[in-house]
């Protein structure tokens, strides 16, 4: 029996367990629990789950402008006339857009890179949506004033941030990144040198 025949001959429940097991953060035990939950659930519930999985794959696409996941192209943020079209915030993943939107204090546009420069994993600038960002800035009808690089504050995020600054700098755009420092509720004693250095570097007046 070859591998293809063996795969086809396994029971539907094994196939479902394997499908759940492929999801991030789901181990074999959790996959089994989820599969048996679906098995015991009413057929309507299973149908809804299957439909929503297919629907999300069929209807969600990438916005031509910001590369965020969307069911409308261009997405709602890119077509919102109340937003500041002169500012673009560059983030690593679509979830980062949601995190920044929750603050309610940013009214510019976004650009999702879908990753970060990670040379040791073989991920370089050409594997990210950097060419799309460059084209978007060059083709924009509105002159872009500022690009805020909101990559994660780690080695790969910093490499991406510096790479973008080098790449976009010659276009005469103001390239900034999010402030670095101590998180709210943190303890100074446990802060690392990089965080403390950045916190001192970007210190602010107590009263303006």
């Amino acid at each position: 029996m070859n591998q293809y025949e063996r795969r086809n001959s396994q029971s539907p429940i094994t196939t479902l367990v394997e499908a759940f097991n492929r999801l991030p953060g789901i181990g074999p035990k959790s996959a089994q629990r989820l599969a048996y939950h679906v098995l015991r659930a009413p057929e309507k519930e299973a149908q809804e789950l299957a439909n929503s999985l297919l629907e999300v794959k069929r209807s969600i696409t990438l916005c031509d402008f910001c590369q965020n996941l969307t069911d409308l192209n261009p997405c709602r943020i890119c077509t919102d006339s109340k937003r500041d079209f002169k500012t673009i915030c560059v983030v690593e993943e679509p979830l980062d857009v949601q995190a920044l939107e929750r603050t309610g204090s940013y009214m510019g546009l976004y650009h999702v890179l879908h990753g970060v420069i990670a040379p040791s994993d073989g991920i370089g600038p050409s594997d990210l949506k950097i060419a799309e960002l460059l084209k978007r800035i060059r083709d924009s009808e509105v002159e872009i004033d500022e690009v805020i690089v909101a990559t994660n504050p780690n080695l790969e995020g910093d490499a991406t941030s510096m790479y973008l600054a080098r790449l976009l700098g010659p276009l005469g755009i103001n390239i900034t990144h999010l402030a670095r420092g101590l998180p709210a509720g943190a303890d100074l004693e446990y802060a690392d040198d990089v965080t403390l250095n950045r916190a001192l570097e970007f210190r602010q007046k107590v009263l303006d």
Partner: protein
Amino acid sequence: MSGRIPRVIKTKAIVLAHRRLGDADRIVTMITPQQGKVDAVAKGALKPKSKLAGHVEPLTLTEVSLAHGRTLDIITQAQTQNAYLPIKSDLQKMSTAFYLLELTNRFLIEDVDAGQIFELLDSSLTRLSDGKKSQFVTRVFEFSLLRVIGIKPELMKCVITGKDVDAEKAYWSMVQGGVVHVDSSVKTFDARPLESRVIRVLRAIEFLSFEEICRIKIDPQLSMMLENMMFEFIQVQSELVIKSSSFMGEARRVIASSGTELNNSSRDG
């Protein structure tokens, strides 16, 4: 009294890489002088208020306490000793550091003197932080690492006959692992002529001190020849593809096209 007391080790470590584990944890790969390469879990390292996160970032010399776990060790405490800060604000230095960390990570296998490689990595990152030229730091690191793991290129004697080779009559064989005398070059399929200035610089890297090496004048063309030669040598001899090597060239290209006045532009805005 019964019950197993967890074994806790306190050691210096340089963090080489990390990967995500579940929602909030990280597996951190480190080089330590005594234990060699260690994978350990930094619990909660992805949470904003984590006490560990900043101390176990890649490219950090840190002192860690490791509790022996069932499958992986657990990092219970960490304190940064050197964050190599100047590297983290310079794209060229950072791309070099990525390469050094990956080389260490890929070549650090059992039966290798981890203490020697630890010292080599720390001194190379310190030199990079101190503003020493990336190309010299990289070439000296590569050469020293290859020597420790036993695949250093042979630069003085013909790898076919064992006789001394004059720089003017040197051919080069990646597969045989070093210089070949012009008279023996037909005996190995990949032997190719080698510019005498290349072999002279490589010999200087092998035998001179770092300070003396830094005084050597190397034009950009020679620098590229040396870099490509070492990349290819490492790949052929180790059968490993060092992924971060291409980013060094990409960083160099974008820096050249943006001009040097943009240094630290991302921080200055």
